[in-house]
């Protein structure tokens, strides 16, 4: 992450404060998704394992609604060429990734806090495991969402393509994260979850390397 990428991140952050392209979509989706779950449950008591799964369902679909904006907003405003004229592909990807990382962390902290306030069954027994899962999971989610956003930005049917392309790429990550979250809810020790944590870390490294290699081809016509 160099100084140029950080400048691009600052430009995106400033632009987001002015336009609220992604933040409005994310806030609305989080509120609607959690409300729908609450209404559909009614007075029923849901199991602890179900709350862990539902948490990542909300996170997955919230990411779908907000994270694609990183590149789609540039394409819609016609500023993609401007970026190509001022920065190298790796700078653009690093800047956009940093922006999505911050957005994912803020979004998921809000979701996790709302979630624990709304659902009595969502009680974390192994907080360290949850924290590491949350950290690695968010990094993976941000990397995958950023490269998928870059791929779909030039397509005509962006809205349909994003979830379609995201599903197979994010499914292994989400399955591992659900498993690890359940472990942290039922108090499984950190050592017993090391294999799954290593898998998530590997996913992050592979996706990051593949994204940097692929982005050069995605970015140029």
């Amino acid at each position, binding site marked *: 992450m160099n100084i*140029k990428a950080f*400048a691009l991140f600052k430009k995106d952050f400033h632009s987001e404060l*002015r336009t609220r392209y992604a933040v409005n979509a994310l806030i609305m989706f989080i509120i609607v998704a959690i409300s729908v779950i609450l209404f559909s449950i009614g007075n029923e008591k849901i199991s602890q394992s179900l709350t862990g799964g539902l948490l990542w369902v909300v996170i997955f679909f919230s990411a779908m609604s907000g994270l694609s904006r990183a590149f789609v907003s540039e394409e819609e*405003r016609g500023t993609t060429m*401007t970026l190509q004229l001022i920065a190298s592909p790796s700078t653009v990807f690093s800047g956009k990734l940093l922006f999505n990382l911050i957005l994912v962390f803020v979004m998921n902290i809000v979701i996790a806090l709302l979630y624990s306030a709304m659902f009595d069954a969502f009680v974390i027994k192994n907080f360290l495991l949850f924290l590491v899962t949350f950290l690695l999971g968010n990094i993976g989610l941000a990397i995958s969402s950023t490269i998928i956003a870059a791929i779909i930005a030039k397509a005509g049917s962006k809205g349909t393509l994003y979830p379609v392309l995201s599903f197979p790429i994010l499914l292994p990550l989400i399955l591992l994260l659900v498993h690890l979250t359940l472990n942290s809810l039922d108090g499984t020790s950190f050592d017993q979850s090391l294999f799954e944590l290593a898998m998530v870390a590997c996913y992050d490294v592979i996706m990051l390397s593949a994204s940097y290699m692929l982005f050069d081809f995605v970015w*140029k016509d």
Partner: protein
Amino acid sequence: MSNYSVEAIALNKVFGRRLIFNNINFNFNNSGIFGISGPNGSGKSTLIKIISGLTSPSSGRIIHNYNEKSIIPEKLHNYIGFVSPYLMLYDEFSAWENLNYFSKIRNVPFDKDKINYLLDSFLLLNRKDDLVKTYSSGMKQRLKFIFALMHSPHLLLLDEPTSNLDAEGKEKVYSILKKESGTSIIIIASNEESDLEICSSLIQLEKYKNPYNSVPAAGEITK
């Protein structure tokens, strides 16, 4: 005199089955103003985009050299300035904010004196803090010139540079281009007679439509 050169070797571009141009060769190794002309759809913008590295040719190569060293594609943006009607700046920022972010992302110093001079030259100094979305299309076009010139590029690529400009704006652009042509290579793609008049030589794209044109035509760069 410029120590920059741009050379095209057997450039060919095909969209689907449609040949846009074939076997374009040129070598601009001296500062000056060069033109690309041709009817609508002849590939003027495509050629400009290929020279700038924004688009790849179907075959052939573009070689950029600075001080006799080849420039790698990842660094090319540091050497070129680009103006076109389809280039967009950030509407939600002011002209000053746009230019400041461009400097930071390029990692070149934001020379306030130079920016103020360019804003003044292009008659935008008193509107520099207004959001770009409040600008007219002519003002946006003038701002694109500042965007193209602010980092002192060695190669200026201008696609329809005077579109949306009034007579005063055009005169301003021509006088600045003539001044810049002493140190930079300027390539203009246009059909405007007044734009092409300032060019010292011209590539006429209608001559490059022959798919069997494997030998460079005599006098392919004419004026």
